[in-house]
């Protein structure tokens, strides 16, 4: 199967005065797994629906390979979609659901059946072909939806928060399975989620969206460690945005004049674990909480700003003895201190 690249070129969409997509441009490579990540109302689902053909952009272009699909009917796009609620057809059994796209393509019955069964085996649903959709568990429905979306060998797959209805354990299993399926098929995949962990685990690249715009598009690691905006920094995890001047260099060199982002888990309480070029933040311990795998300390800097410090239990020898009100210095290595251009704390 040959998968295709996707080009999203300055796409905008407004509903009345509400701007759902604000001049969005994005290139997705053939075979890439790209995640659109953002809070609800950020435009990620609108963008996905525009690709699927259910939302017509006010302006801009959508290209599948070299083909302009901006105005192409959804049924002519050959894009497999997995919906949030699966959207299985309750009046058909599992096999009929999966053969449906093949029947529409006039695939001979025997071949359609064989391909559907092979696809069901691929998503580990062998033996359930004749089962009624209503008799399936959430995880099984999810797999039927996947099988139905890939059985006709689409060039692109779109997934709209497909795991949000599953419980935590199943969700983690499915994250790996969907990723493995993607790797086996090599199909260009655009995945929508509001769960940053899911995005980090599954994606080749993540596009973080907010208020109809793409804030940053990068590899999971760079999105996490090198966020380009304050929004991205805070959306991806426990981020401290530290005002210029609050942090001093351990080696006494002149401190950065920029707003810094330091993740809570980047801190150590032992200066020896951090290089000489690292930074130190001193403040009063306002609160501490034991969270099992780590301790969460809340420091109040002299400027009044609060900083979250997360120390892994394995390295937190002294945390239990710390008393609130006492002065504590937290150290972070230079590699984990990231200046956010243009941001203010």
């Amino acid at each position: 199967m040959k998968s295709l690249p996707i080009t999203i070129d300055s796409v905008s969409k407004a509903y009345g005065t509400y701007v759902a997509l604000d001049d969005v441009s994005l290139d997705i490579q053939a075979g890439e797994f790209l995640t659109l990540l953002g809070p609800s109302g950020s435009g990620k689902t609108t963008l996905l629906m525009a690709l699927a053909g259910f939302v017509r952009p006010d302006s801009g272009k959508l290209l599948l390979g070299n083909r302009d699909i901006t105005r192409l009917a959804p049924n002519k796009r050959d894009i497999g979609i997995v919906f949030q609620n699966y959207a299985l057809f309750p009046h058909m059994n599992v096999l009929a659901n999966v053969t449906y796209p093949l029947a529409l393509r006039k695939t001979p019955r025997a071949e359609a059946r064989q391909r559907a069964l092979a696809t069901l085996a691929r998503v580990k649903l062998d033996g359930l072909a004749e089962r009624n959709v209503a008799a399936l568990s959430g995880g099984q429905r999810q797999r039927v939806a996947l099988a139905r979306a890939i059985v006709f060998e689409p060039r692109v797959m779109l997934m709209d928060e497909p795991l949000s209805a599953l419980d935590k354990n199943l969700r983690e299993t499915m994250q790996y399975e969907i990723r493995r399926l993607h790797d086996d098929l090599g199909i260009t995949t655009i995945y929508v989620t509001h769960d940053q962990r899911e995005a980090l685990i599954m994606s080749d690249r993540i596009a973080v969206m907010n208020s109809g715009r793409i804030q940053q598009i990068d590899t999971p690691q760079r999105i996490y460690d090198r966020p380009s905006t304050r929004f991205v920094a805070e959306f991806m995890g426990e981020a401290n945005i530290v005002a210029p001047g609050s942090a001093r260099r351990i080696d006494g060199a002149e401190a950065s004049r920029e707003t810094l982002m330091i993740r809570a888990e980047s801190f150590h309480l032992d200066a020896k674990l951090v290089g000489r070029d690292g930074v130190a933040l001193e403040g009063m311990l306002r609160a501490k909480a034991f969270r099992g795998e780590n301790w969460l300390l809340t420091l109040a800097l002299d400027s009044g700003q609060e900083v979250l410090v997360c120390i892994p239990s394995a390295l937190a020898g002294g945390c239990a003895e710390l008393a609130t009100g006492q002065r504590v210095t937290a150290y972070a290595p230079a590699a984990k201190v990231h200046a956010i251009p243009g941001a203010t704390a």
Partner: protein
Amino acid sequence: MLEAYPHNTLARILLWSFAALAMAFLMLPTLVVVPLSFSASNLLEFPPNAYSLRWYENFFGSATWMAALRTSLILGTLTALIAVPFALLACISMNRLGGKTATTIQSILLTPSITPGILLAIGLFFVLAAQRLVGTLFGVLVGHVVLAVPVACIVLLPALARFDWNQVQAARSLGANWARAIGGIIVPQLQLSLLSATLMAFLTSLDESVISIFISSGRNSTMPKLMFLSLRDQIDPTIAAISTLWTAIVVVVVLIVTLRQKS
């Protein structure tokens, strides 16, 4: 449910008696024509002194009544066949458009069901007269479709509101055009509502008299029109025989549909 009522025997007896009275009040006027229709007398009299099937023979032997029956059944069938698909498409578009546009379309579509029948008939008469369609079967059909569309919409709108539209989008993404998505995904799942809508549309046409009186004529006369005219001109028990048959047909159709819905 009934379990919610106190376990007081007197209260239960009163409740059931009241329900039985209400049912009787609803049913008796319809049932009273049944013995009348088997009367041997030349007049409508209750209770009849002697019984016979002569009025049924009279009905089935009359070319006029048979023509009217045929007209009514054809009209009812055509009305249902036209009004239900039209209403389904209208309901789908209202469901998709949403907001003020949908509300506007809905009020326009439902207007005929709240307009007094006589006004509708007069209006229709002038419109059809301009098209030289007064007295034709087609003219009456137009009138009946106008009346049946709101009836079908009232049945289909809530059914579509409960329908998961993602299924249609899924079907479209899997390669189905509009017609196939509606025919293969929506229609099979709305089967029961569509059946009810068809029945209601059919009965609306079967039962309609005002438009028929204004628009139909001669051999295009419908059953209700002929029944009205014969009641005015001559009162004989044929009308009771017809009413009994009419009731029987409606009861049978409703029973069949209800039983199908249960299974």
